[in-house]
């Protein structure tokens, strides 16, 4: 089978790989690049476990062709070590018991970070709406929702302290 060459940036590093035309990004990340923090849960775009950041926004890596990522910048759960928002989310996820088996957690964090940055004023209903595309089978979601709301509240409190009017 014909293979295609792809050049992309993954977690800040330029990589050149070859993939089968039918390979999806999640398989490329997990297989060729051994970034197994991106999990595969359904391979039809519903469960959200494979969510990664592509060109700065969360996307489903299981329904994105590897070949279509030529030139793209991809960030996986392994690429957030220096990210303050994810650090705060990790802390609040643990505090609120927002994870059990850990399988949904990487995708959950990628989406949660997007919520925190894109919707700083989100209330509980909005957070629940935005998280609806990430399934968790263990927690019942209460901890996850509270963890995200907690980071939002902390940031609001922090920014109001930083920018007094």
């Amino acid at each position, binding site marked *: 089978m014909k293979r295609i060459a792809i050049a992309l940036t993954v977690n800040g590093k330029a990589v050149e790989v070859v993939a*089968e035309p*039918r*390979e999806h990004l999640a398989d490329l990340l*997990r*297989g060729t690049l051994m*970034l*197994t*923090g*991106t*999990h*595969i*849960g*359904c*391979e*039809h775009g*519903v*469960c959200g*476990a494979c969510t990664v950041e592509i060109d700065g926004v969360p996307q489903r890596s299981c329904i994105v062709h590897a070949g279509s990522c030529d030139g793209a910048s991809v960030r*996986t*759960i*392994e690429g957030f070590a220096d990210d303050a928002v994810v650090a705060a989310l*990790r802390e609040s*996820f*643990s*505090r609120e*018991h927002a*994870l*059990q*088996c*850990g*399988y*949904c*957690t*990487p995708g959950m*964090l990628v989406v949660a970070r997007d919520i925190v940055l894109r919707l700083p004023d989100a209330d*509980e209903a909005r*957070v*629940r*709406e935005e*998280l*609806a*595309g*990430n*399934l*968790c*089978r*263990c*927690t*019942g*979601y*209460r*901890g*996850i*929702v509270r963890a995200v709301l907690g980071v939002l509240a902390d940031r609001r409190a922090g920014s109001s302290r930083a920018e007094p009017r």
Partner: protein
Amino acid sequence: MTDASKGLGVGASLRRKEDARFLAGQGRYVGDIVRPGLLEVAFLRSPVAHARLAGVTKPPGSESSVFTIEDLPEVRTIRANSALPGFRVSEQPVLARGKVRHVGEAIAACVAASRAAAEDLAAACGLDYEALPAIADMTTAHLPGAPLLHEDWPVNAFLEIRRTDDVSGLDAIAAAKVTRTLRTARQCMAPLEGRGVLAEWDPRLEQLIVTTSTQMPHVIRSGLADCLGLDEGQVRIVSPDVGGGFGYKGILLPEEIVCAALAMRLGRPVRWLEDRFEQLSASANCREHHYVITAWADRAGKLLGVACEAIVDAGAYSSYPFGACLEAAQVGSILPGPYVLPLLSCHTVAACTSKPPILPYRGVARTGVCYAMETTLDALARKLGITAQAIRLANLVPPQAMPYRNLVGKVFDSGDYPEALRRAVAAIDVDRIRARQAAGEAVGFGLATFCEQGAHGTSVYHAWGIPFVPGFEQAHVRLSPDGVLEVRVGVHSHGQGMETSLAQVAHQILGIHPDKVRVVLGDTALTPYSTGTWGSRAAVMAGGAVAEACRQLADRIAVIGAALLQVSRADVTVEEGRVRRRGAEGSVGIADVARTWYRAPQNLPPGVDRGGLEITAGYRPDPDTGTHSYACHAVVARVDLETGAVVLEDYVVVEDGGTLINPLIVDGQVLGGLAQGIGTALYEEMPYDGDGQPLAATLADYLLPGTTEVPDVRLEHMATPSPWTSFGQKGIGESGAIGPPAAIVNAINDALAGLGAEVTDLPASPSRVLAAIEAARRRRP
């Protein structure tokens, strides 16, 4: 210092030790593990429910990459027998032999360098079969004249069970009698991670190493060794991080056996990872029950008796190890629920159908039985004109009767069942709901009370006679030379946080900081035998075993510590991580004891106990009939009469799990189970058509609840210790998944009561709710 230290033991909401790796994406699941030379397997699976198999045509040139049962003559069939009288055991070949008995049954294993290439091979295989009639409906499957799935059986039933109290006189004396026909849906358990197997043969150790996503590594080892004709020492099972279990991974898989046989045959590591389509369309299901239930009560609502005809759709095969009848055999024994019931007549059939086998899913039979009993109670209350709480209070076992043996012989250990109900009702403004109803709103209030037998042991399971009967649970504790404690247990953790809670138990006994306690799980080479994690048993059984092993280790530590302090054993205690003199100054740290034993033995006194600082201890509660946690769920639900949609406005759980080892983790268990119960109540359904074809192939068809479907549950604890367990803890892992269908449908039916409509079948989907409303409309002129 003392308070801070106690703040890490039993009862502390310690954050989980395992969180850091999961939050970093460093969890290690089967699918994350690769080996040089790895071969991937895809299975050719049956496209039809029932057929005589004439043959498989392998694609030209791939004869050595495609394996059918004829190619694996050394592999035995899976037999999951039961000691229950009349049980018919199925012969389940690991790949179809002669017949296929459900859609998705594995027929051939196709091996290639990648999964995609293996799937290409499977797609290129030819399949020659003669279709036979499907047996898709459990209500007719076992009747005479139905086509037979297992042709040497007289009927399509694994088992029939009867308990026959005489209820014939109740019509004459009862103030009310109701009969309901109820149905629960076939479900998929749907952990986010599917099953996965990586099998390899180690020629040096002459050992088969199978890395598999399982809840019960030791039981899988026994089953696998048996099917492959190996001795158990030749098999090592490793279960790494498991991405959710819920019962789905409590099974010896045909795929596990096939991968192991192929790894031995090919001398290469062989892997199969279940994809979601396989999980939904081919793998084991759960929960499908049918009830015709009648209950009688006096004017005050006191139950006089219950009669029930139940059918459980057990699918095509008896799965190893739990067998086909764990659900059916329990219907009659769970029906009395938490109530004082004088008479019970119950006939249950475990029907054999051309569908995947069923497995015990979180809650096991209780979820369906609770649904049947609790909705029937509400129907009785409506007929009597009394409230849902009144009829329950009239029947709940009172606290002064504890421990209480009910009419089927179950013994409830402790608790105040009526108080849980009172608290749950008090948490909801029922008057306001009544006012809204009076104003014409379709809003309702629903209750469910139930208890959850957990950690039931030898005395219960030997009667069922399944392939394993749990006995003494073991834990191995080992003090390292640096004073770190290793705790090795044969149960497994798949989200339950046992690396944390068992460390808390060890800390409670020894005072070693939980950060210095390493809990080792999931490897038969590293852990003592255990039947694994299922049946809400780990906190009681493994918790008890770790406590027992730590107590015995404490004694060894005390002996050495006393010698180092130059006092007698009787003059020291072990606490807060040190050996201390009683009533006097002077102590030595456990780490110093360990260092002395391992690295400075010249300092040990002559005649010291040579047993060392490793202990394996066994534990079983006495009696071992199981703890009974219990709960009351109270729900406010609003029904959209136009669309049939149900909104959960409020959800209250009052739960008693005895002493909580880690309340944070217990809350997580209850809330997670609850979300699954909401799925059972409102969303999840694996429909089969008359030809036995599964109709939900993706998660767009099989709906799992998400953040917008699960409310912000209010959870309240009572904490009545069990008198039988090491800290008073009770099994509580399944409780959350038991109550929701009953409580939610009771709330829906309360909302629809004014219309005379009742939902009877699960899930209470919009179409079913609308159909119930329409049926009521048609009944009224």
